[in-house]
């Protein structure tokens, strides 16, 4: 049920992010959403994009420290309180969310998150009739 997220190690130096973005542009990869978790010296750049497997190989060839992580993507109506409802469902099931970010795509709210227990999280998504979306859906929307 998870989709591929690229996790990229970038140093807090000018030019490091540009290098990654240039490599993606060169490979004709479309960035759908991204966020950076940063510390004083480096950041982890998280990226949802088209063709994540190919993007990962292209970045490796460009000497970028990149890995694929499995994250959930659920679609929520773009209305107040919808994200809170979703998160509540997971916390009630005792699942902790390691990180989460969201974005709008064609008027739809997309919530991306990673949990400490993917199996349980998948069950919660089914039981609560949350709308999980896969990579094909995402590409279609993008």
């Amino acid at each position, binding site marked *: 049920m998870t989709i591929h*997220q690229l*996790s990229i*190690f*970038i*140093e807090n130096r000018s030019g*490091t992010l540009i290098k990654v973005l240039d490599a993606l542009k060169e490979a004709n990869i479309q960035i759908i959403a991204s966020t950076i*978790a*940063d*510390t004083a*010296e*480096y*950041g*982890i750049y*998280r990226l949802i994009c088209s063709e994540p497997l190919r993007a990962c190989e292209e970045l*490796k060839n460009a*000497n*970028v*420290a*990149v*890995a*694929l*992580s*499995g994250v959930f993507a659920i679609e929520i109506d773009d209305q107040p309180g919808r994200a809170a409802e979703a998160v509540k469902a997971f916390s009630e099931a005792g699942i902790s969310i*390691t*990180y989460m970010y969201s974005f709008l795509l064609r008027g739809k709210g997309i919530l991306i998150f*990673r949990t400490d227990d993917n199996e349980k999280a998948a069950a919660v998504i089914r039981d609560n009739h949350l709308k999980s979306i896969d990579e094909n859906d995402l590409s279609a929307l993008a």
Partner: protein
Amino acid sequence: MRDSTNLNTKTEMIWNPNKECMSRDEMSELQGKRLRKIVEYVYHNVPFYRNKLQEMDIRPDDIQTIEDIRNLPFTTKKDLRDNYPFGLQAAPQSEIIRVHASSGTTGNPTIVGYTRKDIGVWSECMARCLTAYGVTREDIFSVAYGYGLFTGGLGAHYGVEHLGASVIPAGTGNTEKHLKLIRDLGITGIACTPSYALYLAETMDKLGIRKEDIKLRIGAFGAEPWTENMRKEIEERLGLKGYNIYGLSEVMGPSVSYECQMQHGSHINEDHFFPEIINPTTLEPLPNGQTGELVFTTLTKEGMPVLRYRTRDLCSLLPGTCDCGRTNVRMGRIEGRSDDMLIIRGINVFPSQVESVVLSMPEFAPRYMLIVDRVNNLDTLQVQVEIRQEFFTGVFDTPAAVDQLEKKLAAKLKSVLSISAKVQLKAPNTIERSQGKSAHVIDKRKL
């Protein structure tokens, strides 16, 4: 010249049991006797040493036993350069039959002249090394060190001839032709640098020659630092057993020390080259087992003898009779160069220590940088390492996971260095590849 009075199974692979298996008392006595002679010799034949000894108020008579060596002055690479070209030569030019020169990266090369007797001693020491590796008169042995001013080629060549094996003076030139000879002649032994051995392996792959097609069984590798991993790789790819050989042209050339079948340190030909380990800062001798700077005194050399020559190589000495039967002292692996020593918060730190830790963790590339600074009167050490692409996996999608990896390295560094270092993780291929050790250090403490 070979002594065969003491032959048993153990001594079959010992060229000169009389010297290599001498009792410690006899060895000390021999060394003392030879030291007295060499000090007397340089006092009368080398103005540089006469002046130094007179300045220190030492007369040759003051040197009686090998322990008295501690009173003698040191010789450095700079002394050799300052006295370029023949200032430290003790024998008259008419007695010199060969001259080698070591390449200096800056300034003048070091010129070393050898008398006929010196070449004889060198060949003898070389034959001891080769015999320890298992080379016999039946072997066809290829010397693939550079022939010429460098001591490697001719030094090994004369040793192989002295032992009586067939020498193939291959040099480092035409590698494909060399490989053809290795295969067609059934060459069984080779002396070369470890990196040339790997190059041979690569060329074999290129030519489609398999290790089953060749008969190499013994490799004598030296003249540059190498690791156990390199040894394994060379042995695996060439199908031979690799042995360390150590030497330096200022002292003689290759054959100063050699590994035996036990491969637990390299035996020093200490009846000719007396070793000491000193603290490079205080110059005080260190007890056996401790790591410090290796110092050699040539006990028999005529052409250019040296007293207490500081090699800048860091290692320790392992005394005691070896399982191979030899009693001559062993030296451990070269752990670094004393030029590279940093004093951080009063503790001696060598970049090579950091290197060994970094190399032990597969998560990091074998590149690193030490950045030393002084903040609020306190020295700080930062170690930069590159994460290896293959080890950057999906678990590293949070800073917490990266921090954990940094902490793991920091803990290992602390246990090896005895001071704490701040680890900074870098992206792959962002630390400059460098040759010399000193290029791994940025010391910002210019006070």
